[in-house]
Each structure stands twice: as C-alpha cells, then as structure tokens.
C-alpha cells in the first residue's frame, strides 16, 4: 500500500480507531518511512493541541436552573399514562397503518354481519303493526261478528226445497 493510502489509516490510529493488526503494520511502516513518520508526529502534535484541557469550558450553573424551571412549568408530557404510551406507539408508521387496517376490517365485518343475519327489529315492527291494526280496524281473528244466517253465504236458503243438500232451508 502506498504512503498516500496509509495516511488516512494513520489518523485513525492516532484517534484510537484502528485494529491491533493494522496498528502493528503502521508502526512498522513509520519506522522505515521518514515521510510517514513525520506525518504521524505532526498529527499527534495537532491532537495534543486540540485536546488541551485549557480548551474546555464548563457550562454555567444557571443553565440547569433555567432547564429545571422550564420543566416545572411544562412537565414531561410523555412520562406517565396509558394514553400517552398509546399515542407514542402510533408514532410508528407501520403500527399506524396496521391499526387503520384493523379498524377498516372491523367496520366492514360488522356491516356484512348485519346484512346477513335476520333483523330482530323486524319482529318488533310486526308486533307494532298488529297492535295498530287491532286498535283501528279490530282483531281480524277475534272481532268477527257472530255469523248470522243472513250473512252466511252457505245458509241463505228460504226453504228446504231450495236446499240442494236436503236441508230445511232453500238457496236463494
């Protein structure tokens, strides 16, 4: 491998992101290649410079005070509660679509079942209709007036002689 290709690996070595086998190879290479050795030392100096503790700042203490007071005014919305958990669950798109599909399936199934089965409300309507008829027109089974001979089409004979069946009443 050429020196130019080794240099990116060398910076990974300096940053502690290189496996031990490659590290051995790079170490051996820098012992024989002065240009790569110089690059390695230069980058190490750069790293030490940037990792100086003088270049770090402590965050001011008042930041936590501000965060804390903000949290008191707006409590963690999602910390507790079944509904919050449920809402959070449906933030996942696949679950959201699955839930929509289930709802559609249930609604369609319920609709089909209603069409298929006998309507229990039909019996109620029939009973109501019968009651209405009885109240307005009388019971067709009970309120037939007692049959009089005059009204009976089979017993309207004036004389026996008229009766073809040999009764004492005749047909008109």
């Amino acid at each position, binding site marked *: 491998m050429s020196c130019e290709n080794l240099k990116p690996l060398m910076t990974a070595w300096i940053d502690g992101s290189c496996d031990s086998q490659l590290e051995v190879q790079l170490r051996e290479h820098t012992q024989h290649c002065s240009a790569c050795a110089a690059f390695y030392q230069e980058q190490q100096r750069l790293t030490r410079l940037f990792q100086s503790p003088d270049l770090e700042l402590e965050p001011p203490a008042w930041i936590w005070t501000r965060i804390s007071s903000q949290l008191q005014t707006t409590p963690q919305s999602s910390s507790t509660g079944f509904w919050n958990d449920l809402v959070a669950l449906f*933030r996942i798109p696949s679950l959201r679509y699955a839930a929509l599909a289930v709802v559609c399936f249930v609604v369609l199934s319920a609709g089909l079942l209603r069409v298929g089965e006998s309507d229990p409300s039909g019996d109620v309507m029939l009973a109501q209709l019968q009651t209405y008829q009885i109240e307005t027109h009388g019971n067709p089974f009970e309120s037939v007036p007692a049959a009089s001979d005059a009204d009976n089409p089979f017993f309207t004979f004036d004389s026996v002689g008229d009766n073809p069946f040999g009764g004492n009443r005749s047909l008109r």
Partner: protein
Amino acid sequence: MPNEIAPAELSKIVARAQQGSEDDFYQLYLLFSKAIFNFIWRLIGSTEDAEDLLQETFLKVHSELKHLRDPNQFRFWLYRIARNEVYQKLRRAQRSSEVSIDDEEAGYYNFLTDDTHQPDPETLALSGELNEVVSRALDSLSPKYRDVFVLAVFQKMSYEDITKIVGRSMLSVKTDIYRARLAVKETINTYLKKSKIQKA
C-alpha cells in the same frame, strides 16, 4: 470518552429517567452537560449560542426520553439531538444570510452574522492565542468535516461511535476526518506564518 461511566450503570439511570425520575434526569445532565456544551460550542463557535442550545438540547431530551427504545443508545441519541439543534440554528442563520449550508467551501461561521466571527471575550481570556488558533482552524472547515473532526479529536470518540451519530458510513467518516485534519493543519501553518511575519 467524555463520560466515564459503565454502560450498564448508564442504562439503569436512563431507564429510571424514562420512568419519570427527575433525580436521574439530573444525573444525566451532570454526566453529559460539559461534553455536550463543548461539542455544541465547537460546532457553533459562540459560547452564548452554546448555552442556549445546551438548554434546548436537554429540554428536548426530557420531552423525548420516553421514546428512546434502547437505553444503551442514549449517548449517541443525545449527541444526535445536540447536533440537530446546532444544524437548526445554523439553518435559521443561513436563511438570513442566504448562504448554502451544503457549500463544501463555506466555513461554519459563514452562516452566522458577522459579529460571531470575532472570538468571545470569555474564550480569548480562557487561553488566549491557542483558542484563537483552534477557532480559526475549525472556522476553515465545512460542516461535513467539522462535526466528525470535533467528535473524533475534541470528544475523543471512536470512529464507530461517530458513524452512529452522524449517520454516515465508516469509510466516509474516516476519509472526512483525514481531510479535516489536513485542512486544519494547513490553516494552523498559515496562521503561524502570518503571526511570525507580524511579530517580526
């Protein structure tokens, strides 16, 4: 590693904070606030903005912590939130200055108003010339190089961890850090030459 705590212990603290423990959330703040503050500061270049963005970051962490599925991923998740806050701030500044954030040639401070080019008095007082050199070196980097450089060199993160934060491949991260290192070295050399000429 900025936060010397066992991963198992950190996971327990995160899990308790997810259950609503304010004490454990405060523990998380104590563990990570300094690292995140310095990370933001090095990205945005202004301590004042870094203070505001640190606050915004932890408020967002508090409100979204319940949705973090794996407590072991907390550190990467936290850095991603902080990075997003910085990018949002830079985009807002970009809109006002009409400079493209994707411009590879543009330095970070180009997105900010002119007064942010000047190092803060607090920063200068901290370590004088060294800080100015570092600020100028970071200023020369585009956002793409700057965040991986800051994570690798200032935050001492492994390249594998950096891929989880910036969402780029290992090869991309490795190459970008290498290029950033070359650019920083070039800027420092130029600065030092100018300083020598001015002093002479």
